């Protein structure tokens, strides 16, 4: 998977969700400490379990043991269209079952649209 979605010191919030394509946007805004904005987009989301505010974010693919636990909780099996992403931000098992995840780090403001969410409803009109 990736080492690039590793932001253990940043606070993320659920920024947007739309039923269209099952898109979920998490955002860490700029602060006095951090000069960048981080947007993490999950697409084709099928299940989620995590708090609305995440104190640190590390996204990875679940191992077999964790996958079994997520399957037990959701009744889903990982497949081509459903990857079990673990949000390793706490001791609890937080996860997103989705088709894909993408991340953009830029210097945008909190009120500016995301490159991954180019409009109020996620559509570049």
């Amino acid at each position, binding site marked *: 998977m990736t080492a*690039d979605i590793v932001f253990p010191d940043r606070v993320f919030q659920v920024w947007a969700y739309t039923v269209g394509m099952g898109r979920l946007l998490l955002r860490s805004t700029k602060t006095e400490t951090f000069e960048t904005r981080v947007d993490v987009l999950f697409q084709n989301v099928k299940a989620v379990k995590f708090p609305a505010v995440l104190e640190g974010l590390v996204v990875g693919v*679940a191992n077999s043991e964790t996958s079994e636990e997520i399957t037990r909780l959701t009744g889903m099996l990982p497949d081509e269209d459903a990857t079990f992403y673990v949000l390793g931000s706490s001791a609890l098992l937080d996860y997103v079952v989705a088709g894909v995840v993408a991340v953009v780090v830029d210097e945008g403001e909190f009120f500016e649209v995301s490159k991954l969410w180019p409009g109020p409803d996620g559509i570049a009109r």
Partner: protein
Amino acid sequence: VPPQTPAGLEDSTTMHLTATNQRSPYRALWRLLTLIITVIGTMGVIASSSLAFTAVTARSSSGHSMVVGPETRVGVTNHFSRGSSARLATIQPACVGENGPGYDSFTSASCVATKSVGNVAAEADHIVLGLKNQGLEATAGKVGGRTLLKDPAWQDTLRSAVADPSTKFTVSLDGLSGSSPYSQVMSGAQRGLGGAGSYTDWELAQLYQGGRLGDVTFVKGGVPVPNPFKP
């Protein structure tokens, strides 16, 4: 603070992937064959494109490795998705390794867009559109196409696909409001053109604006229905 591996993550999930190019020993032969075919002028493009990729192995620092192919996903996002290698030109420089597009360097965080770098050049891209909650993925599997559900840059992908006459489209009418296929499509397209509506409405508007509705295969329950836009 150095990244730590949280419990529950695969060893390979928190490390940078580096890819090594495993060139086929038959590559030179294939290239020669491709050249000959190209000179002859028959199927040259198909042959050369289909040989553009050899196996690529992504190897983690712990030695874990995986073969990266068009169905394998690694890196910051899904660098590989289903599609045809006709999309080679869409690979961005930041994602192009020393050995050329599709070979290595998947570690750049700037490579955030899904790249379509499949290996079946002979087959045109086949995009399946419709409502996600109406079994769209199953429909795509049934008709042999792909959805854009795993493509974060889905709007760009669709615009390019509409402009590419070789792209095939299937639209599932399941769940779309309207009393006929014509009204189902046009009501959605009009909403999309008006700046409102759903993602599917926007997609239908693109097909309408691009003059592609006549080429579309419309299906209900995965079964083709007559295309009311066919000239």
